[in-house]
């Protein structure tokens, strides 16, 4: 820049800042250009970010909100929900006569209401989640409540059913009147409120969600480990063969990857069922008798075998791409210095493949833990995953809040793993084929 042929306005001088041809200081101009370029790059991603936000992030956020937000009581019985807040549950006494009166009136109004989500049935279901067996109390009382002409309402209700004298019931009603509740999150981790309103573990017989979550994690870990065991030798073979041969063999890996999940699952049903191919072969070879056919499907075994097959390419591809970068001369050098094959492998080769192992295991584990289709089809009752319970609550039992609470827990687990993946591997390392 010290060339004298340049116009002298562009030459740095001690007393003047460097300026561009149009007289703006260079620093300012550069900052402005950088800002424009950043903005331009950002603008290119903006449509997609907006789309993902509207159709993906907000829906999931809303669902998470549903896990702690359940306005059933205040929608069915709005006046009661407000009035019960004044009652002191720890006083040991039933709510006042006035609250009882409002409750009866709200029940009568709700009984006439046919709007979806605002019927007595909804209220009964909501309380039934927390006090199992209380459903009929609400429906039958609502039926009879219309006949109560005048007070005292408290006695009238107690006459219909003496369960209305239970403080626990009113405490639960008071808690449920609040639109925000922890009840479903607690249920999702096998906890509940006891009679005194304290948070305790649920009865051992009713603890189902934590065991299923642990089983999901355990089976996913097993699937990941089996995938690793199977993928490692194959990836090594692919990375050491000449390119022409390895490309040919790669087709054997990529074809399953590109084949529909449903196709692969139905193939495994054909292979594993008791009248299926594997049992037939074993009977034919005399390994087992015709009456001793092994049940390999509609249980955990079926889930594990088919999921290992389905997720295997996600382990092979990252391992392969890392192994390809390791020069074979390292192993030869180790051998020439006197290491045995095994020693050279564990001290020289294996440590260099850890990035691939991290990428593959994390990806397979993340994908396995949220699997739904394969466990639903080949898992029977004992090989199901937490996803299947979530889907059941959303589609069948219609306990949406509990389904959302379970989903929230699964999401936390998956997001933690995703964060780990980002830290260890980097999301930009993700590649297919």
């Amino acid at each position, binding site marked *: 820049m010290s060339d004298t042929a340049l116009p002298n306005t562009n030459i740095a001088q001690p007393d003047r800042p460097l300026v561009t041809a149009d007289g703006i200081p260079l620093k300012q101009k550069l900052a402005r250009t950088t800002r424009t370029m950043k903005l331009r*790059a950002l603008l290119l991603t903006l449509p997609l970010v907006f789309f993902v936000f509207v159709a993906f992030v907000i829906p999931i956020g809303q669902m998470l909100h549903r896990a702690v937000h359940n306005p059933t009581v205040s929608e069915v019985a709005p006046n009661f929900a407000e009035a019960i807040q004044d009652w002191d549950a720890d006083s040991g006494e039933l709510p006042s006569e006035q609250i009882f009166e409002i409750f009866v009136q709200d029940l009568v109004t709700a009984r006439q209401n046919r709007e979806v989500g605002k019927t007595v049935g909804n209220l009964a279901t909501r309380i039934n989640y927390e006090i199992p067996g209380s459903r009929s109390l609400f429906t039958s009382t609502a039926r009879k409540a219309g006949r109560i002409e005048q007070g005292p309402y408290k006695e009238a209700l107690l006459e219909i059913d003496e369960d209305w004298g239970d403080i626990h019931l009113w405490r639960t009603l008071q808690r449920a009147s609040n639109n925000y509740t922890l009840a479903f999150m607690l249920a999702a981790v096998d906890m509940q409120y006891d009679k005194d309103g304290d948070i305790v573990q649920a009865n051992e017989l009713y603890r189902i969600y934590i065991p299923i979550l642990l089983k999901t994690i355990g089976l996913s870990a097993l699937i990941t480990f089996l995938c690793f065991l199977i993928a490692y030798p194959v990836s090594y073979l692919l990375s050491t063969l000449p390119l022409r041969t390895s490309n040919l063999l790669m087709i054997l890996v990529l074809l399953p990857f590109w084949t529909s999940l*449903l196709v692969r699952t139905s193939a495994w049903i054909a292979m594993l069922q008791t009248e299926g191919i594997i049992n037939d072969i074993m009977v034919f070879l005399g390994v087992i008798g015709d009456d001793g056919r092994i049940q390999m499907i509609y249980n955990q075994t079926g889930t594990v075998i088919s999921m290992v097959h389905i997720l295997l390419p996600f382990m092979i591809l990252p391992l392969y791409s890392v192994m390809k970068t390791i020069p074979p001369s390292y192993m030869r050098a180790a051998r020439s210095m006197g290491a045995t094959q095994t020693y050279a492998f564990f001290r020289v080769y294996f440590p260099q493949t850890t990035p691939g192992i991290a990428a593959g295991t994390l990806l397979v584990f993340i994908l396995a833990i949220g699997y739904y*289709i394969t466990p639903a089809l080949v898992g029977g009752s004992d090989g199901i995953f937490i996803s299947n319970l979530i889907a059941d609550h959303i589609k069948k039992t219609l306990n949406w809040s509990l389904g959302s609470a379970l989903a929230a827990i699964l999401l936390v687990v998956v997001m933690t793993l995703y964060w780990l993946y980002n830290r260890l591997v980097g999301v930009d390392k993700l590649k297919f084929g």
Partner: protein
Amino acid sequence: MSFKKRLTSNGFYALIGATILFLLFTQSILGTVGFLLIFGIPLFCMNPLPAYATTGDKIGKYAYLAICTIIFIFLILPILIIIPLSFNAEPYFTFTDGMLSLDPDAYSFRWYADIVRFGMTSPDGGPNWWSDMWNNATWIRATRNSFFIAICATLLATFLGTLAALGLSRPEMPFRAQITSLLISPMIVPLVITATGMFFFFAQKDIFPFFPESLVNTYTGIVLAHAILGVPFVIITVTATLSGFDRSLIRASQGMGANGWTTFYKVIMPLILPGMISGALFAFITSLDEVVAVIFLADVDQRTIPRQMFSGLREQISPTILAVATILVLISIGLLTALELLRRRSERLRGLSPG
């Protein structure tokens, strides 16, 4: 080692001998074919080991190759096995004795005919056979739905995904890591969670000012869901292509007086097109294969092929599913071939060695 030399090696003779013994012993053609595969392939693939290799090394190498062969068979066998099974004349999911003895009567095309006929009002022929098939046959409807949804979702995902990938691969992109992880997350978040969220969200009315009705049980809802699920694949493939992109080409083009659009269409686009197409293929196959979102968001009218297979596997298992599966495998082979050709083209364009 040359092919001819392999055929005259001692190992080859040993294999032939062992196979004949196996055949005499078990008297089963199928078993012998399996034997030949598991023990023959590794022997055939084994290159001569260096002179310093011990007998232990040789056995180890042979065992290793045998294990790899078994794994490759594990990978590919389930997919190949459904092809002959789909020609079963009986309504079973397994090989009948007739099939094993290669009796022509044990094979039939009835399940392929069933794909077309199932659900038709008069499958044995009527005045409007073709329109009956087009409108009423269950699998034909599912196929139409699948392709319609997949094409719409792919177009949406590819367009938005490519734009975003162009932005993400610029060196000056701010918050690159955060935005990339956000855009990849639909692939990571369990499908059940995504589908549940969308089910609640789309079920509300008036969420979009221009669309007053609920989006559940509509094509729009499923297309939006599938587009979201396809986006990560487009981002990954297009950014991978752009990472090898020589940015000085853009400056060269601009230096020669081209404006932004000309540069894009004449320089950038041709170079990233292979990446874009393979991203689109990924998005297409993702949508074609996706079933969880369809379970949550679609009604009977929008049933797709995988959704139909899902209920088929749950309710009445029939070899029709295997016939459909065989067709899907053929489609996958076609797509895989297309992808491989694209990859080679892309490498050639970028001046890498041909694969």
